[in-house]
């Protein structure tokens, strides 16, 4: 096994990882910083294609408290206020920093970034990832591209003392010993059967290369995880998987049902609000379908063709295949007379802490429950709606604390048996090839999750009976891990991708089973407990896996900072039919924007 040493180790060179490396080198030139990245920092992670907006930003007049109020309302009250406030306080400074590095941010006449939503600004982000990657490279940090992290190394004193990985080019093992480790490998895609079939199966919203490795490493290491049951499910243009916000906002297109009626308003007006939460936008679309008024669409009829061209250009810098599909639609419009409405639908569920709540349970310094390990970005839980800028903010907060910690500790020794065991585990599919190709096991996993754990095929809903079957089949799937086979380092990576997905899926099912209410429609939708129960379940559901594989569930209270928010009622079919017109306070009435991202 190859080995190297450093002071700070950053695992995952994505949005959070690149900024963490620069911050660490700027604040502490004396510290040796290493970044471990499975691809290449120039185009790795969620930002590979680019993005067209920064979705967490405080506009003029907004404060961390007003941002928190918006997040608390959108997530029906279960949010870590401390994490959200500390993150929000850092947002604008980090956006300005990346602008200084070369990110083009258009401004209005008064020099303010262009507003795209409540906390969102327009950017020209096609080259955002190379901008971040080159800065990280120039910072003096050592970048280890093409090293796929596999496990935390635990030191003799119980601290996280390094991380194991292997080269995706040679298959060789590597152990990087460190004083402090930051995990920022993103969320988990590919747990569920994807919305597109066969050759298009990776045409999904989240990066299919973020396989939940960091979450899996933490779970296996016994870290406390939070709120996996808050799955994030994007509402997207069907097939293209393009974000609807881009069209809704730039083209002023409304969500309409098959009868041509705009339907969102109907739901939120009856609830006494002026806009809907992110998940209820998706839920309302499902309800319309269930009521026989589907499919639902974004109405592009009558849209100015010049504006449409602008949207296509915007898609090119974030979701290029969506630009191709929209161009094809526009082609039909030219030959057929009018732009057809585009169908919208939900995608597959993901575990992703940058949009949702799920991930490592961390403290305000972004320390995980394992000493020596910090977490930032999509891998960290408790504070949704962080997006790219929130990942930068969390990275910076974590690194400041890590620098102090690194100065106070030594690298702790790691015993040889642990190193040998990990080498064996990781290399087994190459050295003693079994009979199961990773893609097959992945398909089995995705089928089970889709059918028994609320996938697209089940309209995201589930009950205890299905979850019991999911648990049973996942156990059997995990038993097949020992039969995985690989003939190249690339296939070895695919083997570990599926191992990590299975580990995350098993934990996810335990979370789904524990929360016995429905708090977030579609994201967390129980058929056997369809109501939200604020008296019992306004808590975080956390989990810890012990060495023998048993999962212990823990509940943690929601500690509300001194802010006043009225939660929206659930956009529940029953509530709507009864037309209960209780007016919420003026605060809850304050305008909530369209869902970004």
């Amino acid at each position: 096994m190859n080995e190297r040493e450093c002071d700070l180790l950053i695992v995952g060179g994505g949005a959070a990882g690149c900024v963490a490396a620069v911050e660490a080198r700027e604040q502490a030139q004396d510290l040796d910083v290493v970044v471990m990245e499975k691809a290449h920092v120039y185009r790795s992670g969620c930002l590979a294609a680019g993005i067209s907006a920064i979705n967490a930003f405080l506009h003029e007049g907004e404060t961390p408290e007003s941002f928190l109020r918006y997040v608390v309302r959108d997530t029906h009250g279960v949010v870590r206020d401390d994490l959200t406030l500390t993150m929000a306080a850092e947002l604008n400074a980090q956006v300005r920093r990346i602008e200084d590095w070369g990110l083009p941010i258009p401004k209005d006449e008064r020099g303010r970034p262009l507003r795209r939503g409540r906390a969102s600004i327009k950017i020209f982000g096609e080259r955002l990832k190379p901008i971040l990657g080159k800065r990280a490279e120039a910072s003096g940090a050592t970048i280890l591209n093409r090293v796929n992290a596999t496990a935390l190394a635990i030191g003799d004193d119980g601290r996280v003392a390094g991380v194991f990985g292997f080269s995706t080019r040679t298959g060789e093992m590597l152990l990087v010993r460190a004083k402090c480790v930051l995990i920022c490998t993103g969320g988990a895609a590919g747990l569920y059967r994807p919305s597109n079939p066969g050759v298009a199966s990776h045409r999904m919203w989240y990066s299919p290369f973020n396989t939940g490795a960091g979450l899996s490493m933490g779970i296996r290491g016994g870290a406390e995880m939070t709120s996996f049951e808050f799955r994030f499910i994007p509402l997207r243009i069907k097939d293209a998987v393009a974000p609807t916000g881009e069209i809704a906002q730039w083209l002023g297109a409304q969500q309409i049902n098959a009868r041509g009626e705009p339907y969102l308003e109907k739901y939120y007006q009856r609830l006494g609000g002026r806009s809907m939460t992110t998940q209820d936008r998706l839920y309302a679309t499902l309800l319309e379908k269930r009521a026989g008024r589907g499919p639902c669409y974004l109405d592009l009829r009558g849209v100015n063709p010049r504006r449409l061209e602008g949207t296509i250009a915007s898609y090119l810098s974030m979701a290029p295949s969506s630009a191709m599909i929209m161009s094809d639609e526009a082609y039909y419009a030219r030959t057929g007379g009018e732009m057809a409405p585009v169908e919208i639908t939900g995608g597959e569920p993901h575990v992703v802490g940058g949009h949702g709540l799920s991930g490592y349970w961390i403290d305000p310094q972004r320390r995980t429950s394992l000493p020596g390990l910090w977490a930032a970005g999509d891998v960290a839980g408790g504070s949704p709606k962080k997006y790219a800028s929130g990942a930068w903010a969390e990275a910076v907060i974590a690194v400041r604390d890590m620098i102090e910690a690194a100065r106070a500790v030594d690298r702790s020794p790691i015993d040889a048996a642990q190193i040998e065991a990990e080498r064996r585990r990781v290399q087994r599919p190459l050295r003693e090839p079994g009979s199961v190709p990773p893609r097959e096991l992945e398909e089995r996993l995705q089928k089970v999750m889709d059918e028994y754990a609320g996938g697209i095929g089940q309209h995201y809903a589930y009950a205890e009976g299905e979850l019991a079957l999911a648990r049973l089949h996942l156990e059997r799937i995990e038993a097949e891990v020992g039969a995985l086979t690989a003939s190249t380092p690339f296939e070895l990576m695919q083997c570990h991708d599926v191992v990590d997905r299975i580990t995350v899926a098993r934990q996810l099912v335990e979370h789904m089973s524990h929360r016995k209410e429905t708090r977030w429609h579609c994201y967390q939708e129980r058929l056997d407990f369809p109501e939200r129960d604020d008296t019992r379940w306004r808590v975080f559901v956390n989990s810890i896996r012990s060495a023998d594989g048993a999962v212990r569930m823990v509940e943690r209270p929601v500690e509300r900072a001194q802010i006043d928010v009225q939660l929206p009622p659930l956009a529940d079919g029953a509530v709507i039919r009864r037309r209960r017109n209780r007016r919420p306070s003026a605060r809850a009435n304050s305008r909530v924007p369209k869902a970004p991202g």
Partner: protein
Amino acid sequence: MGIFVDEERCNRCGTADEPMCVRDCPGDLMFIKENGKAAIVDNRECWDCAACVKVCPTQAITMQLPTSLVVRGVQLRGRAMKHKTEWRIRLRDGEVKGYETPSTGKPPFVPSL
């Protein structure tokens, strides 16, 4: 999904240490075949991020939508320049549409909504 390498154009990035498409793919999907030309390990693995399409110095890579998503292919080519990226979308009737997206430095003026 779909990226396709035009072997007539691909020159393995000349003398570069690591070919650009091999370097930049976020899923590590590109490799150089024995004949010295780039290829993708499996199009089912592709995310369609177009990172390889843009970075190729000879514009040898096109992205195509598979038949399972659209009945007949639309094609995309791109080219990363210093401050912008140029794009060409070829429609099903052969018409080619050009686009530009700003990439680094001073942003262009955008009229507010």
